[in-house]
């Protein structure tokens, strides 16, 4: 299986519930476990709400385009905004700092939580940004081996 679809939503927090339902269904179709479906959905939600808050500064007139690719062994989700170029290096540093802090102890500072969740859930996280075409966030999550075998044996049964 290799299938892809797009969903384009306004940068409105109200739309996140709809995005989650759609992403959860896509994850189920690939064969992720309930727990993984929830995690991937959360990561996509965090990616979108970061776009709403940081790229569009809370304005509801922007747009987010989400492309989802379903594979036999993974899901790929690409979030695209149409805002200004972002400082990817700063973002990378933020994640590093966050990860270090978390290792030491539970931090009570909520800042940076979204980006950190995305990184701890997804297997691949890649930002690509440019001045005139906004930012693209590419997320990939693989099926666990065990899960893949389970699905393969079900579909041949």
């Amino acid at each position: 299986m290799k299938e892809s679809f797009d969903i384009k939503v306004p940068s409105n927090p109200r739309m996140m519930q709809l995005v989650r339902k759609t992403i959860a269904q896509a994850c189920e179709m690939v064969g992720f476990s309930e727990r993984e479906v929830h995690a991937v959905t959360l990561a996509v939600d965090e990616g979108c709400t970061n776009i709403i808050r940081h790229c569009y500064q809370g304005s509801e007139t922007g747009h987010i385009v989400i492309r989802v690719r379903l594979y036999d062994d993974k899901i790929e989700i690409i979030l695209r905004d149409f805002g200004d170029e972002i400082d990817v290096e700063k973002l990378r540093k933020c994640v590093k700092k966050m990860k270090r802090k978390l290792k030491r102890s539970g931090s009570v500072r909520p800042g940076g939580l979204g980006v950190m969740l995305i990184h701890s859930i997804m297997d691949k996280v890649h930002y690509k940004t440019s001045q005139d075409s906004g930012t693209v966030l590419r997320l990939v999550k693989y099926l666990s081996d065990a899960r893949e075998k389970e699905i393969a044996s079900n579909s041949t049964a």
Partner: protein
Amino acid sequence: MQVIVQHDKNTAVISISGDVDLYSSPEMRKAITQLSKKKVPLIVVNLKDVDYMDSSGVATLVEGLQLTGKYKGCFRIACLKPTVWEVFELARLDRVFEIYETEEKALKVSPL
């Protein structure tokens, strides 16, 4: 999302149902802020009907912890469903909060 608040002078229970996300968390925030302004000594947030919470919900709870901390109040969370528990774990905040299995326990245990 729905927020129901029951409180007397010493304790308050905030019962949330539905998804807590960027759209709905401001409502939960409002309830927490109002109660901490009144310096209610013990605030329990009951999440038994919450299936989904994102980082904006978690950040709101962290804020609640900070607000109540200022007046030495107690801020507790009760009845986390597995999906919500997982967000706390992923955020490594499961040990930062006082988390109880039931609302009763959250109300009974004396302050640490």
